[in-house]
């Protein structure tokens, strides 16, 4: 056992940590105090984070200051909320017989261009055939198609409207492999195809 001098820094520390061990009462008091400190710290951190999340909700979006923003990731998720519900936009639908003829004719001509992919046609040539009947935006989607993957080679029937609104018409066009379901919308340039899928 080394000699323990009652003087100096280490003796002072020893006196500190041995203090709770002198009696059961002191030990109990120490445990209670430590618990209080831990609980207080947890509660304090919780309160701080809740408050910062709250200010994030209040301030997001409404400020426009010329300081640079950290590009990259969104800030911490804020308290779970949803915008007040709004009714979805739904156009009033018209009887199928009200489908404008120009819309049906654009669907038919578009389908004819879609099935027209002779051996060796380039993707660009194929898209050029569709261009007069397609919206600018949707042409950007069509350039990703490999015409060699188009299953049909000819249109086999008349276009038929399946859903009609004043400025958008859903049209089906049968081909020798499948039936096309084409969305035709009225644009500043007239009726144009803005989307399609196969009828499943």
């Amino acid at each position: 056992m080394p000699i323990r001098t009652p003087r100096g820094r280490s003796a002072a520390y020893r006196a500190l940590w041995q203090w709770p061990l002198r009696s059961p009462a002191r030990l109990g008091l120490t445990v209670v105090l430590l618990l209080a400190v831990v609980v207080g710290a947890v509660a304090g951190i919780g309160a701080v984070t809740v408050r910062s999340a709250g200010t994030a909700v209040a301030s997001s979006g409404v400020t426009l200051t010329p300081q640079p923003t950290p590009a990259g990731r969104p800030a911490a998720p804020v308290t779970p909320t949803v915008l007040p519900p709004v009714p979805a936009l739904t156009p009033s639908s018209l009887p199928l017989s009200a489908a404008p003829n120009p819309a049906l004719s654009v669907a038919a001509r578009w389908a004819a261009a879609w099935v027209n992919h002779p051996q060796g046609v380039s993707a660009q040539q194929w898209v050029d055939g569709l261009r007069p009947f397609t919206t600018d935006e949707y042409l950007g989607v069509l350039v990703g198609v490999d015409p060699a993957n188009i299953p049909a080679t000819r249109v086999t029937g008349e276009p038929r409207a399946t859903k009609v609104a004043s400025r958008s018409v859903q049209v089906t066009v049968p081909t020798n492999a499948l039936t096309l379901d084409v969305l035709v919308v009225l644009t500043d340039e007239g009726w144009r195809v803005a989307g399609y899928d196969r009828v499943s």
Partner: protein
Amino acid sequence: MRLLRPLRLLVPLVAVGGALVIFLVFGFLAYQGGTGGGAGLVPGYCDAGLRSITQSGSRAAVGDSAATLNEEQRQNAATIIGVARQKGAPPRAWLVALATAKQESDLRNIPYGDRDSLGLFQQRPSQGWGSPAQVLDPVYSTTIFIDRLLQVPNWDRLPVTVAAQTVQRSAFPDAYAKWEGLAADLVSQLAGVTDPAGCGPNTATLPEGAARGAIQFALGEVGKPYVWGATGPNTYDCSGLILRAFQVAGIDLPRVSWQQFAAGGHVPVKQAQPGDLLFYATDPSDPATIHHVMLYMGDGQMVEAPYSGESVRVRSVPWGYSELVPLATRPGTTPNRA
């Protein structure tokens, strides 16, 4: 003074304690930042289009959830996830593969198809996908799909349907979008991935700084010419400008303006906040006819890439214009259809 001398003993304690506090606080903040976008498949990025599909169900096909698949389909989905995981591909690649296989083969390993298409992904031996026996092997077909997907530049920041189409070059370019919701459901059901869209819990506001970041990006592009189909960096079309602006802010949007309309919660235009999207449609009650998108800056101002012959510009919002859609979209927030 003598009384205070014992306090010197506390100096090392305070030093150690202080270091500990600093360490913990920084760790806590870093953790918060790191999970800022939720447990998404691409850390820190919110796929606003995927969220709108997974949470509103508006565009999802009828009854498509992991629970409605039969045993064979679930088996094949599990195989796809297993193979992709073993290759070290991240969960977003599993999701793209699942949406693709659902569209191509209904998640069945079919020994037939259009012309020489075969198997889960309907790969064509004549187009360089492998021998018929190979493309009919689910492990091989998943492997080659994942290989080609990972070669697509920026594949994990593209909308799921665009990433799938870039690999498949299908005759139905956006057909995969129908299955994004199902694929996200499968990834969470079979592999335990939470929040596949990465947009975090329900939100009614943009993440802090996102609106400012997007607006500042767009303002930095003012004067660059409008070219249809362009997504920067020197020319833009309307949705291309919005796409890039929000990418900078950590939110990934779909490519086309009517899809961007669906990529978040809606507010009446008069309640728009900076960072919300405004739209023009030839029939403002019909989202199918949306043909233009603008970024609202606040105070009645907006920034847009208007049309051919014009440049990116700042203008006052024409609140009375007959084509202005009455709802604005707050990208990446929780869908709120009544």
